[in-house]
């Protein structure tokens, strides 16, 4: 029982990071109705920015700020250089999906040119684990969970209470109708990308901290898991996505710890990606609009 709770604790940390990444992804999806496949690279750039600033200033808060800012600017650049023009030009969501995949390939390779492909070690002292309720979490983990909750609360406030949030919801629901009522959809989308980028950049920083190292390909791997969480929660639904992330995050930590006789004892954590995609396939096939909607509908573009 104790071990199970420990695992659940780690699951909550993973879920927190995943929730940040997935909500950022789904916000972008909401305002544009296209999946930004280069989303993972926002996290990667956030991690590199954090690392560089941390090296120079030695301050973790400065690193976090740098990661968020770099992420925000990256996402804004993605929107204004590729996604926005493609939408304006009338490209289908699939074409934009392909274009952002190409963009992701470009960014990964440019990062390799600048920083090299080898692992960058980013080890912080996580501090001694403490007993928090039933879980054993070190101060770093606690910070991650608390910051994820804080960001969620702020985001909830922005989306539900501010004028910008109202515009964001309007554009997400119906871009054309929002336009008719005088909302500048392009600007709202750009601002949303910046906001999503801030969150994703920060997520890149905490992910790098938790994992302890990263490469130019680091964000892409996490994007694949992010996608699962976002689809499970319902693409474009910010809070459904958060719930999806919590479920996927916990499943990813708990399943490998289950004593299932498989390949010599336990399911190795390396199968994470396979497990995530197993969940993804099931969700898409049976609940394509997400776990928290009741309509079972076929997905036609």
């Amino acid at each position, binding site marked *: 029982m104790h071990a199970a709770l420990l695992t659940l604790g780690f699951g909550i940390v993973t879920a927190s990071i995943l929730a940040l990444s997935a909500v950022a992804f789904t916000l972008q999806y909401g305002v544009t109705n*296209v*999946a930004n496949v280069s989303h993972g690279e926002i996290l990667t750039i956030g991690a590199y920015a954090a690392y560089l600033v941390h090296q120079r200033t030695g301050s973790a808060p400065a690193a976090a700020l740098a990661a968020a800012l770099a992420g925000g600017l990256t996402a804004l650049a993605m929107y204004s250089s*590729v996604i926005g*023009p*493609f939408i304006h*030009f009338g*490209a*289908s*969501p*699939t*074409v934009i*999906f*392909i*274009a952002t*995949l*190409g*963009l*992701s*390939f*470009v960014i*990964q*390779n*440019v990062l*390799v*040119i*600048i920083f*090299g*492909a080898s692992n960058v070690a980013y080890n912080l002292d996580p501090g001694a684990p403490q007993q928090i309720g039933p879980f054993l979490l070190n101060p770093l983990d606690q910070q991650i969970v608390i910051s994820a909750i804080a960001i969620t609360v702020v985001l909830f406030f922005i989306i539900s209470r501010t004028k910008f949030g109202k515009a964001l919801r309007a554009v997400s629901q119906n871009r054309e109708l929002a336009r008719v009522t005088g909302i500048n959809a392009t600007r709202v989308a750009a601002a949303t990308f910046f906001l999503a980028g801030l969150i994703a950049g920060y997520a890149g920083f905490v992910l790098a901290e938790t994992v302890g190292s990263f490469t130019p390909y680091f964000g*892409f791997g996490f994007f*694949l898991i992010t*996608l*699962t969480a976002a*689809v499970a929660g319902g693409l474009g639904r910010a809070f459904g996505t958060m719930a999806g992330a919590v479920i996927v995050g916990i499943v990813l930590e708990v399943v490998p710890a289950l004593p299932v006789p498989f*390949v010599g004892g336990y399911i*190795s954590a*390396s*199968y994470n*990606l*396979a497990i*995530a*995609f*197993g969940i*993804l*396939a099931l969700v*898409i*096939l049976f609940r*394509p609009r997400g776990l928290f909607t009741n309509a079972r509908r*076929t*997905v*036609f*573009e």
Partner: protein
Amino acid sequence: MSAYLVSVLTEGAIFGIMALGLNVIWGWSGDFDLAYYGYIAVGAYMTLVLTIGAPIAPAQYILGATLPYPLAVVIAVISAMAVALVVGSIALGHLRGIYFSIVTLGAVYVMYVFAGQFVPLFDGYNGLSGLFDPMGDWFGLDYFSYQYFLMGLCLVMFALVYFLMSRVSSSRFGMALRTLREDERAAAAFGRDIYRLKLKGYLLGAALGGFAGALFAAYLTAFNTSAWSPIEVIVLYSAVLVGGRGNIRGVALGVVIMGLIVNESTRFLPSLPGVGAFNTDHPQVLLAARGAIIGLVLVLFLRFRPQGLLPERRFVDRQPAQPATDVAPLTA
């Protein structure tokens, strides 16, 4: 002929077969399939386990037979089709657009993770090796003449596949696949069985992928997870896109252009100022510059010339329905 040219032509022919297979799935059927590299990998892995003989400890892998190469290739192609049947019958059911792409992306990463992690299958990350000069001893070829033989084999196979695809392109099947791409509901209204047609197209594409993988295995003599990464499929997509999606002459042109970019684009890079400012000592830089250029080409073509350099010929109705003129006015 220099050894360099021989390897470029061999690679180009294999790459061409891969692109022609992808063209069936994306060019004609219109599905952005990200699992495609998985079928290439299945073809390569299966060819190896069927030809290199029983594993020597500590290596472990399935089968470990010593079949003649052509027979192994046939089985490898069937295996690739079998995997594609599983993925396709799930993904093509009622998923379209990005949902299809996401599921196939998932499928290929599952394959990749299993190939790398599940050691009893294909020896995990170590992968398989030891396919030396298949069919070479039948003709008594030494190492050097074998390279020419393999080049010739791959070129002949490419020509054969090209011819076959040009026949398929203008066949009823090829036309029907295109209707699905253009308007699935209209095709259904005309009595087409969408699911079966799409699945057939998908299997044909995967078969070509598996076949190219089998030749690839002979060329590389070995295969492991570092020889393929699912995202490499972008290179194939850019070849199909640049040349002209749906048009096999375009696809062949795209292969030549991307082949040139892959092999030649970075030749002059290290001497450029600026690039050297970073870590030129890093061998990865050249590969990365190549990748960045390919990705950029893909994005720019999608934006500015999505039909490619040699666009597919659009089929026009030569005898459009005329409004009837000699009909008596309808009177009650």
